[in-house]
């Protein structure tokens, strides 16, 4: 289960892979397939290897439907001058105070204001 969580696959996928490499027997495969990785043990790839505080903030963004990719895109549009800071804040559903916070979180230097 630890390895399934580590590789971010289901226990079934892990069992099949291990069987293909002849590491485990058919019985072990069946046993492994019955196990499930509990939700709280699953590692979100977007939040892996981040300091706890950063992970918490990014998680709150994800809960609002803002993925790393989307936030990056919005911040890039802002830093490249394609959209204004106000517009970037609108796209991220925040106000300009939180925009600075998010920019800091994503290591974007504030070139406007």
């Amino acid at each position, binding site marked *: 289960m630890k390895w399934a969580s580590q590789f971010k696959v289901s226990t079934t996928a892990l069992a099949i892979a291990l069987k293909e490499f002849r590491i485990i027997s058919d019985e072990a495969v069946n046993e492994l397939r019955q196990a499930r990785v509990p939700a709280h043990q699953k590692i979100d790839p977007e939040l892996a290897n981040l300091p706890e505080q950063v992970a918490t903030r990014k998680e709150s963004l994800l809960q609002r439907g803002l993925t790393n990719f989307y936030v990056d895109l919005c911040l890039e549009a802002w830093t490249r*001058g394609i959209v*204004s*800071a106000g*517009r970037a804040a609108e796209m991220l559903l*925040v106000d300009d105070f939180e925009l600075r916070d998010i920019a800091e979180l994503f290591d974007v230097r504030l070139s*406007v204001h």
Partner: protein
Amino acid sequence: MIDVSHFEKLNVADTCSLWNILASRVLSSTAESVGVQLCSTTFVRYECLHKPSRHWPERLELRKRLQAKLSAGRISFHAIDIEDLQDFEVLKNRKKLSAGELSVIVLARKTRQAVLTDDVGAQKLARIELGASLVQSTAHLFAWLYFNSQMGDSDKDQIVADLLALGRSLKNLDEYHTEAQRCRAMANQANRT
């Protein structure tokens, strides 16, 4: 570079510049004392006072200051019409600027006042819409006050500290300050000769 010897006194400010000016009491009171007037749109009022957001102590303080200015009648908010937003340039840029910034540009054009914004993107569009002389920023306001000896060098540090205390900053303040110093020195020299 901008002309620091000139500043339009009647301004339509966007959310960001409104916060920046309100963040520094010394800047806002000096500007007021020389007759600089700020107004804005009802959408900006919504963004400033009513739009739901996370709890920020800095924002709360700025809201308080804005409320005080409103009660004292120092800042007013005006509505714009839907027809005003149907202008071609405005429509073309609706994806690049926020609704607040667009509404400010529209009101400024309608009432022939200057736009006050600290956002580079908004300034760019406003220049197309209104001409460069009617597009101003908080740093420009400071530089103009400095040029006219209404503010000194120490005031700049105070403004930077005031803004920082409320989580705000003006990247180009130093640049404008240097330009104002240069122009003031030149004007003084011209007066002497």
